[in-house]
């Protein structure tokens, strides 16, 4: 029988700190979270981001048919005095819109769902501006472009035609100006 005690795995018969450098408590993490794993994750991220654009193209292909717009009566001009507005739906019942008769006598129409979080946008006659009260989003009255607040996109423009004292919606431009 020898007096030698059985040594553990990777243990040397010494108490020198520089010998027994095997107690890496983070060994498992070091195997998982390292330079190589980082790059593999980066590649996966890049591929995932690139492929994430594909469903939008597929949806675009499926809905590629041009929007067809009907000529729809909105209101009679006599019912909308200067400095007032009326709401309507165009081109579908899911698209709320706003017909505005400005103080200057201009007629304007926009879809009124705020591009930020779809709250209804209102016409403010005193300041002649379009306001989304939910998060204080402001739009230019004459262009529908966002002026202040969280909205990043313009309000879709409803094309209108006025004939025989009646205002008609005849089309829509989502991107304009």
């Amino acid at each position, binding site marked *: 029988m020898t007096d030698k005690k059985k040594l553990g795995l990777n243990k040397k018969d010494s108490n020198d700190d520089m010998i027994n450098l095997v107690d890496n408590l983070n060994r498992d993490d070091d195997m998982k979270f390292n330079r*190589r794993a980082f*790059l*593999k994750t*980066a*590649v996966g*991220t*890049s*591929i995932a*981001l*690139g*492929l*994430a*654009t*594909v469903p*939008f*193209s597929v*949806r*675009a292909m499926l*809905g*590629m048919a041009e*929007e067809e717009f009907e000529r729809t009566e909105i209101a009679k001009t006599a019912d909308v005095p200067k400095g007032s507005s009326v709401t309507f739906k165009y081109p579908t019942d899911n698209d709320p819109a706003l017909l505005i008769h400005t103080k200057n006598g201009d007629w304007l129409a926009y879809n009124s769902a705020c*591009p930020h979080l779809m709250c209804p946008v209102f016409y403010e006659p005193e300041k002649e501006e379009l306001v989304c009260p939910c998060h204080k989003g402001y739009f230019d009255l004459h262009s529908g472009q966002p002026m202040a607040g969280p909205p990043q*996109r313009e309000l879709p423009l409803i094309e209108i035609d006025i004939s025989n004292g009646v205002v008609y919606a005849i089309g829509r431009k*989502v*991107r304009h100006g």
Partner: protein
Amino acid sequence: MGKKICWGIIFITIAINVVMLQWTIEAYLGLEYEKIYGYTIVGVVSAIIAFITFLKWRKLEYTSE
């Protein structure tokens, strides 16, 4: 092509794909369907480049010991 260049290319593809995804969503919300296809093509090509670059890096990384 060295390993560092591979790293650079992969990170550039990430940047490109982030921008392409953002532009794609903007075009989709604006019903600008014709633009979406271009962005998707760039995004997918960029993803393929990232993958090919990864294969190249792997070859260099695991055989240069």
